């Protein structure tokens, strides 16, 4: 059972449109204590404040941080223009031609919430913030709901106000609402507990879409540096095809050196059975992961290839988090590439949002080449009997983080566990886990966002629950750094957040906490490789 909720910051819905310097604030004392040795607030790195310059230039009146950097309008006229644009976007959000993609779920969520607040206890952000009203799953939803009944369903008549409440629409509200749509990781944990079936995560998602598709306002890391860059340069990492090929050459060499097995990455092979698409962040940040995939595919005798086409070597699809047009552009690009290469299936690398966007959400755009997720694939590999595996090579404590997109939104729960139970004798679960997992705190693209002081916020607030869960999962082990402990996170985005969590708290040095994917554990268990693949020294 969730804990009883006692809200510390009292905010009404109507406070949202009242101009003030800052609507909400989280004190370090509001954050619940972490298990030792991270339990002393005074020993924590602290919470950086937004710079005065940032506050002067941008709309920063929501809370302690800022993601979108909305320039302040010059005058009232510009403010009014932006508000009118917002209303126009609001109307389009509820039009079938612009938002057929989510109109039905959104309308259902708008019109049927009982305001029973059952969902709030399930939100890790609301809980970690010390129950600050502004981060309730229902707070931003209620604002959009009131605007929907007032501006889309027609008029502010007494019946509408009586039934759904009222709210004043002004620039203060619009700018805060944009930022607030980026204080939810779209993890959908709250949606599971709603007895009516309302999805507050989806409401945040559609709010972001309104701002992006109508007003060209979105988090820069997702839009300019994300989807736009991916569709022009080839990858949201900024790598073009030449760079990624170079990286893979280096990875192949490194694999041979460390495993004794010659590995060769295959490019643009027409007619291969499998097109492998990674989150391109892996090539840069966690090269062991694509290296391990290349080795396993090769050792299994599977005919496979990577693609060097624009977006073909980067399965990232940040459109999933904020913009259906960009989502569809990238998904279609991936499907076209697979078709062109005439592969039998796409193998989606270890990345949750990639798997969800390419695997199921994009499924309603076209009848594309079949897609297989990495968890099912590795389950098949491990139990095929084709690889000689020695579980004792993974003789360290291992726990598993469930990426929300794969688990809660796709029902991929057991394969990764079957694998771990087979190859990692000291595997233990976090609690809760599976479909009731907690988000890593970097969901919906946050793991790549660190502008202003957002890193502090996503570590201390949104990632708090996950860090606590990880520490508790290893509570029965020697707490010190001498015993290395492995957090298996089969998702690039989640790995990014867990890396930042561990760096921030110095968790490697203090507690011996390491993280990586699932396939690295499989390769580490292979009898045919020389030495150990998982090397604490270089992690």
């Amino acid at each position, binding site marked *: 059972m*969730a804990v009883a909720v006692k809200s510390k910051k*009292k905010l009404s819905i109507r406070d949202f449109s009242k101009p003030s310097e800052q609507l909400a604030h989280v004190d370090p004392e509001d954050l619940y204590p972490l298990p030792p040795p991270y339990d002393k607030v005074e020993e924590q790195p602290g919470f950086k404040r937004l710079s005065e310059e940032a506050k002067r230039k941008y709309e920063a009146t929501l809370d302690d941080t800022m993601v979108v950097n909305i320039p302040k309008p010059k005058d009232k006229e510009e403010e009014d223009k932006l508000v009118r*644009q917002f209303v126009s976007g609001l109307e*389009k959000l509820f039009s*079938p*031609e*612009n938002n*057929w*993609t989510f*109109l*039905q*779920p959104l*309308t259902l*969520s708008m*019109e*049927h919430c*009982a*305001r*029973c*607040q059952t969902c709030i206890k399930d939100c890790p952000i609301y809980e970690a913030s010390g129950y600050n009203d502004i981060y309730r799953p229902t707070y931003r939803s209620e604002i959009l709901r009131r605007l929907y009944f007032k501006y889309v369903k027609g008029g502010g008549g007494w019946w509408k106000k*009586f*039934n759904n*409440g009222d709210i004043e629409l002004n620039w203060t509200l619009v700018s805060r609402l944009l930022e607030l749509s980026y204080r939810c990781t779209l993890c*959908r944990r709250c*949606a599971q507990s*709603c*007895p*009516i*079936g309302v*999805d507050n995560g989806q409401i945040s998602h559609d709010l972001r879409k309104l701002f*992006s*598709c*109508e007003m*060209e306002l979105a988090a820069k890391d997702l*839009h300019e540096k994300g989807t*736009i860059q991916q569709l*022009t340069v080839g990858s949201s990492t900024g790598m073009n095809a030449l760079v990624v090929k170079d990286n893979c050459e280096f990875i192949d060499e490194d694999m041979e050196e460390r495993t004794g097995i010659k590995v060769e990455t295959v490019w643009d092979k027409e007619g291969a059975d499998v097109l492998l698409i990674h989150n391109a962040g892996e090539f840069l940040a966690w090269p062991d992961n694509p290296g391990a995939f290349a080795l396993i595919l090769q050792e299994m005798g599977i005919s496979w290839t990577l693609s060097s086409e624009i977006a073909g070597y980067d399965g990232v699809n940040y459109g999933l988090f904020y913009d259906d*047009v960009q989502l569809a*552009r990238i998904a*279609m690009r991936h499907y076209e590439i697979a078709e062109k290469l005439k592969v039998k299936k796409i193998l989606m690398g270890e990345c949750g949002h990639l798997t969800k966007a390419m*695997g*199921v959400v*994009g*499924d*309603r*755009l076209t*009848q594309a080449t*079949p897609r*297989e*997720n990495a968890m099912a694939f590795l*389950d098949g590999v491990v139990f095929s009997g084709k690889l000689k595996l020695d579980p004792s090579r993974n003789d360290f404590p291992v726990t598993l983080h469930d990426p929300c997109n794969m*688990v*809660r*939104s*796709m*029902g*991929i*729960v057991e394969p990764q566990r079957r694998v771990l139970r087979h190859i990692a004798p000291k595997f233990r679960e976090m609690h809760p886990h*599976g*479909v009731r997992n907690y988000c890593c705190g970097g969901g919906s693209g946050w793991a790549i966002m660190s502008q202003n002081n957002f890193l502090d916020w996503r570590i201390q607030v949104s990632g708090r629950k996950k860090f606590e869960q990880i520490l508790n999962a290893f509570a029965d082990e020697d707490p010190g750094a001498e015993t290395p402990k492995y957090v298996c996170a089969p998702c690039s985005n989640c790995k990014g957040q867990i890396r930042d969590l561990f760096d921030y708290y110095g968790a490697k040095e203090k507690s011996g906490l390491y993280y990586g994917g699932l396939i690295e554990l499989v390769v580490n268990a292979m009898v045919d490789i020389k030495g150990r693949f998982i090397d604490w020294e270089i992690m």
Partner: protein
Amino acid sequence: MTFLHFFVYITIIVFLAAVIARGVRIARMPIHLRWDLYPIPHEKGRAHYGGSILEEVDWWTKPRHKDHIGELKVMILEILLLKGVWEHNRKLWFGSFPLHFGLYLLIGGEALAVLGGVLHLLGQQFLFLQPVITVVIWTGCVLGVIGTVIMLLMRIFDSNLSKFSTPSHYFNLLMLGAIYVTGILWLSGDQGFAANLVGFYAGLVSPSVMPALPAVAFWHIGCALLFMFYLPFTHMTHFFTKYFTYHSVRWEDETNRPGDPLQKKLDPQLAQVVTWSAPHVGADGRKNWVDIVTSPAPEIEKETK
């Protein structure tokens, strides 16, 4: 036709028309992108832990077995016992369950009375129904009053709820409370309650058999009719739209593999003209979804050059 007849018929017509209109509006909304949420109870053998067919290697080659009984079980527990609220908000359940279950019993009792009315008009005996109707409606009203009082107190004194409640939340509870209280008053003051209720329904069709009802009955019927009249225009329509939130969103996992029939329904949606205004979308008043997503937007073209 009396004023009572008029009021009853109008209410029934408005209620049905508004419920059907809402249902049709929602059902006819475009097929959305997949947005399933696990666990999904029709996933045979996997529902207990939240798994799906996507856990299989080459899942698209495997037959799909849907467990409709499993789905039904979840629905029955959810509708009758409010299992979700029990699991996620125990405190609220102690008010919400009696409130809802009381209503189910009240509606069930009324349905039995309607059946009695039909039998009466057909000249059949209905005496065996009378004690059942009385017991069911008594229980429903008592549970309903308990639930209403608890919910009202929670809505007023629990700041978690009060901040997010609109005037209608209190009004709805008061209306429900009024229905239950007047029901109890009618039941306790009228020895022939069940016979009169049955006679009332028969009298709606054949005015000559309409019994003389006590004054409190008119209060009860009036409150119930008023509630029915405005209910379809509120969020309380979740009593039937929940079907859509579950079946059309949460549990909707239809695939679109090559050869699946779904694409035929999707094509007209993709042929719609996009009017989003942000420059990167590249909408020009003519391009449809297919045009937009298969060609780079102006901004993108600019950057590529």
